[in-house]
């Protein structure tokens, strides 16, 4: 299985679908307009790409449209206009390749109530076409890293929220497909698990996986993300590396002390000055 992975390390290989070459787009969103109602779309002409080996952070206020973007990428919603390509195909063109090419970790852990953590890992491994021995080895390795070894044979109803979240992450990282979509991965995790998760995501990225990571915890994104996409009211209001985002927020980069939090706040206020009262800084 690792042989099928372009430049995979044993720890992060195992793609069911071959990973795109480093730098090739694993996710392409072109002019996406969509939402629940055609009359009132949530997203307006969204375009961005996530290349193989790249981590892109999706940030925005509550209701900005991050989850709607993710739902479109997962094929749970159909675009009103535009298209979403994963590993070069749309869901309509090649459903199987599309599904094999992405794994998703939702914000709320959604484990199957009848399956233990180990059984979830088995389900994921065979769904993504991983070999049994290798999948078992990596599952044990991840369980140790996330301190979940004792919980491998537990049913979800006996796990805490943080442990459920770790189990979801383990499944996605085990699958290690070309595109990992991770929604608010840090909520509910303890500090050691956050560190393990970020290390695992880094390894997956180095191995060629593209990562789309939605989070409100901007310092973590600032350190790890290659690029950021800032959404506000269903539109992209800024995009680029964290430094580029700061420059976009601060004009010509005069404010060297500006954090990503500051930049994000400025960008949102520029897009919607009425929010100034809510921000508490006027």
């Amino acid at each position, binding site marked *: 299985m690792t042989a099928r992975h372009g430049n995979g390390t044993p720890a992060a290989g195992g793609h*069911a679908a071959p990973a795109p070459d480093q730098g090739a787009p694993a996710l392409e969103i072109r002019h996406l307009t969509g939402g629940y109602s055609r009359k009132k779309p949530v997203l307006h002409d969204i375009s961005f790409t996530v290349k193989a080996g790249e981590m892109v952070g999706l940030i925005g206020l509550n209701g900005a449209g991050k989850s709607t973007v993710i739902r479109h990428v*997962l*094929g*749970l919603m159909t675009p009103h206009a535009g298209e979403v390509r994963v590993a070069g195909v749309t869901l309509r063109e090649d459903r*199987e390749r599309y*599904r*094999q090419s*992405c*794994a*998703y970790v*939702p914000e709320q852990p*959604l484990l*199957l*109530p*009848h*399956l233990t953590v180990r*059984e979830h890992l*088995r*389900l*994921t491994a*065979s*769904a*993504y*076409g991983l070999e*049994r021995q290798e999948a078992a080895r990596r599952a044990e390795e991840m369980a140790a890293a996330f301190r979940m070894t004792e919980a491998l044979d537990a*049913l979800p*109803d006996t796990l805490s929220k943080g442990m459920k979240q770790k189990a979801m992450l383990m499944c996605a990282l085990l699958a290690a497909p070309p595109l990992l979509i991770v929604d608010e991965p840090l909520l509910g995790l303890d500090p050691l698990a956050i560190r393990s998760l970020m290390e695992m995501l880094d390894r997956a990225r180095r191995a060629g996986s593209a990562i789309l990571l939605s989070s409100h915890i901007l310092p973590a994104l600032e350190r790890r993300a290659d690029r950021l996409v800032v959404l506000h009211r269903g539109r992209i209001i800024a995009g680029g590396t964290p430094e580029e985002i700061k420059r976009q927020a601060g004009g010509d980069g005069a404010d060297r002390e500006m954090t990503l939090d500051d930049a994000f706040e400025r960008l949102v206020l520029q897009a919607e000055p009425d929010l100034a009262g809510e921000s508490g800084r006027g």
Partner: protein
Amino acid sequence: MAERSDRPAVTGGAERASLGRSGAAAFPGGGGTPGDGGTGPEDLLRQLWRSRANAFRAEVAPYFRYVAQSGFGLLVTALLLAAAIQYTLWLNEFPPDVPLGLYGAAWLWLAAVWAPMRTYLQEADTVFLLPMERAALNVYIRPLLVRAAAGGAIRALGAFALLAPLYVRAPHTLATAAGRPLWLLAAAFAAIGAWNAWGAWRERQTIEALPRMLLRLARYGATIAAAWGLLNAPLAPALAFAALAAWLVTALGRLPRRQVLPWERLIREEARARLRWQRFLSWFVDIPLEGWRPARRRWAAWAGDRLPWDRRHMWHYLYAKTFVRGETFGAWLRWHAVIGLLMLVFRASLADWALLVIGVLVGGVQLHELRRIRFPPLIVTLPLPEEDVRRQAAARVAQAAGAAGTLFLWLVSVLPGLRPWAWPDAALPAACLLWSLWLVPRRLAKRRTDDEE
């Protein structure tokens, strides 16, 4: 306990929020805070139980239409009629070899020890009602205890009212019954029923599991001994014994550590009570089971792990695990156990054959429930095989379970030495296998309109 809360008192608005969907009606006018216009915490708590009870009734009432449509009412009526006829026959002539003194004690014990208490407490109450724990105990729980005690007394009285006419006629108890006033027995059993409700509350308050279990055993033991004594032993010592046993168990209940108000236990108990109702209703209509937890069943769940490790069998894997750890499998197992037991009891060819056919037919109907298994919508984001494979997987799991059930019942029916072998012992299993291996899976594998989600 008392694990008093250090939380700051919540505002009236937060208390309103705590009531959730069923409690909102407890605040008429939608306005006042606890100190506003006479709607203090006590007033609100008083209304809370009533509003939650009403909300629960309103929630389950619509489903009884389906219960009625299913013929369940007819079945219950038929059973009641049969019981009434049998009771009348017993009134005319009670079998002389039946030890009614013993059976009567068991009957009264069953009526007395069951001490349910619907609190309608919810998870959110540990956040919003906890700061008013004292008021909750006095205003919310205490009336429920009185109600539970009254319920226990009425149940015990009802059971005794049914037993008494037989008690004074049955050959075994005729002489004993003649020497004691029935009103006194009725009063004693009512007191025992009420005392059981109080004892059950003490058990709920007990923190550690072992003392709680021992207290329950002591209560059960005291109740059965008192009931037997009151029906069979000389009256005065029996009354004295019952009073002494009740006092002793009550005194024992003071020894272990207790919580004043065992919030979490009451919430769990309430969730189980809701689940029981939902389980009952789910026999007739497809309703979600809140608070339901899967069973581990390691002894059976391993079978799913024997499936081949490839994508084509992922739905098989999911269905196998879900079925084995779910409700249907439990019902299916119990059904086969009951049929097997009846076969062993009857040990007659005709009965075995009838039971085999009924057992396999009903077992197959139960397996149709596999069609109703629903997975979370996000499962579609996994690269699982297509929908046709999914239905085939459900059919294969039903096929395996049906074959195992048929084999089990057939083996029990032909257990060597119980009865002579006859040709239906070969023909009937073949017909049963046709049902289990072909007809049931075929129906499960068929696409239906309600499969499209």
